[in-house]
């Protein structure tokens, strides 16, 4: 009984300490001792929900990480990608990826100061894997999720080539794509704003 009454108090104190000392954008783990104190009387498990099979997870687990985890089998290159782009992408992004009307993908003329401020894959995207992930999950806008993995590899290759980052013949696959270093990666920093009076 003594243990039961003291424990929640100690846990609450630990929780308060954690919240006061760690910025809440800190991606670190929260130990079991600092969980919400109002859940301490919960059972270990409620037993609601069902185990999910590996097959079911695989069917929807489409994300690709910068280290290449999640990239599927297959390959592609910019020569093939250019043809797919013309048919499935150019209506929204322009013949060369610079004209719009929707998001500009290719930097193009870098001598113009105005163009340098435009966010494109070549000057703003920090990871090449993100191009694959996003095109596969959300493009084309009117037929999302309709591209094959091979088509996505080729489109990614075309967009990287059009931005001057790989050659026209470079083969992209699960091994080569994560190795591409994007020019903008060096500019990215985690949020440096903090609680308190400093405006950043």
């Amino acid at each position, binding site marked *: 009984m003594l243990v039961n009454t003291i424990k929640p108090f100690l846990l609450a104190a630990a929780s308060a300490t954690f919240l006061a000392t760690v910025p809440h*954008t800190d991606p670190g783990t929260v130990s079991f001792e600092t*969980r919400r104190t109002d859940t301490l009387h919960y059972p270990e498990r409620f037993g609601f929900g069902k185990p999910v099979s590996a097959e079911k997870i695989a069917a929807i687990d489409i994300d690709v990480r910068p280290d290449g985890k999640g990239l599927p089998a297959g390959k592609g290159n910019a020569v093939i990608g250019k043809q797919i782009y013309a048919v499935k992408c150019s209506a929204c992004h322009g013949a060369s990826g610079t004209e719009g009307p929707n998001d500009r993908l290719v930097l193009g003329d870098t001598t113009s100061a105005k163009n340098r401020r435009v966010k494109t894959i070549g000057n703003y995207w920090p990871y090449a894997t993100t191009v694959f992930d996003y095109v596969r999950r959300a493009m084309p806008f009117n037929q999302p999720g309709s591209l094959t993995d091979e088509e996505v590899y080729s489109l990614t290759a075309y967009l990287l080539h059009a931005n001057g980052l790989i050659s026209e013949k470079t083969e992209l696959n699960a091994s080569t794509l994560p190795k591409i270093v994007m020019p903008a990666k060096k500019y990215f920093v985690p949020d440096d704003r903090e609680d308190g009076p400093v405006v950043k």
Partner: protein
Amino acid sequence: MDIGKDKPLSGRISRRKLLGGAATAAVVLVQTATGKAFQAGVSVAELDDPTKIPGVLPGTVGTRSSFEQPVKKPSPTSSRTPLQDLYGTLTPSDLHYERHHGGVPAIDPAKFELVIHGMVERPMVFTLADLKRFPSVSRLAFLECSGNYRGANDGKITPQDICGLTSQSEWTGVALSTLFREVGVSEKATWFLAEGGDAAVMTRSVPMSKGWKDAIIAYAQNGEAVRPEQGYPARLFLPGWEGNTSIKWIRRIEISDQPFMTREETSKYTEQVGPAKIRQFSFTMDARSIITYPSYPARVEKGWIEIRGIAWSGRGKISRVEVSTDAGKSWHLAALQEPVLDKSLTAFRYLWQWNGGPTEIMSRAVDETGYVQPFYKQLLAARGGNMGYHFNPVTAWYLQSDGQVLFRST
């Protein structure tokens, strides 16, 4: 509103009465020639003296008065809350702002599933009914898009257009920490991916600490099911954080030990600071306020004016709101409406006597961490001349001597 000018109203009512005899109980909105909607079955005579004719009988669903027509303002990607037409701090659900990246999906709640997998002991799938069986939590909180500032050189811009991607609801659901326990999250996990079931299959990486602290899988908004535009049948809700991280129509959570670097957190919701820095994972919404009355397009008369507005901070509670009625030369404490809640819209008011001379009024919020809402020029300087996301400047209103209220940048 001049009722007498709406000739079609009286014409239609007369005909209804002729056909149906007594006043009908059915409430139907009738669009008149001047574009105003009125309740059919309500005669001009009733409007003149409602005490002389029995009113409409009880119904199954209430409706807004036909005299009140607040509307959101849509664009191809978002729709903005009419802040200048609202009172207090709770946004009516049908006026909550919208921002989506592939449209509003139609999801059958009977087929809804949330999969949680990755660095867990037990990968699990939860139906909507499963989620509702867990202990529930409710909280009031604002939600705000991080791209939520606009100005206008001619001053003719409303609070809705300036920062109408801010709304507030009571959110009810299951604490994400409860689900983390249920699946047995690894203590080595540091980030999780939240993924929506919309056409964008929208994804964001979120630190585990936020998931443990106060994240909710919300299935209810203001006492009823979450609206389709807000993520029906269930969404992630992260109090105080930029709106796009609160993934709507949530279908999958993957527990991991690194961020996934999705399109939204790399090429989209990041801010350029100066010439060679791009700020990433800037989750928290800084403190902000805006005077919603008087504001454009209102006209005011000299004499007593209660200046009213809303203030909020993603870092905690609002500790005070200061109001200036002399273009920022002097500041006065506004009254805060209790209860002042963590990461929630807080209503403020300041009673003022306007002498009719041209002046600028403005408000600035201060939160419990000591953050003071900056002026526009101050913020622009701090960002090295870049505008963009997380732009929360003090907003001023210029009162002309004729009573017209116009936006002014600070």
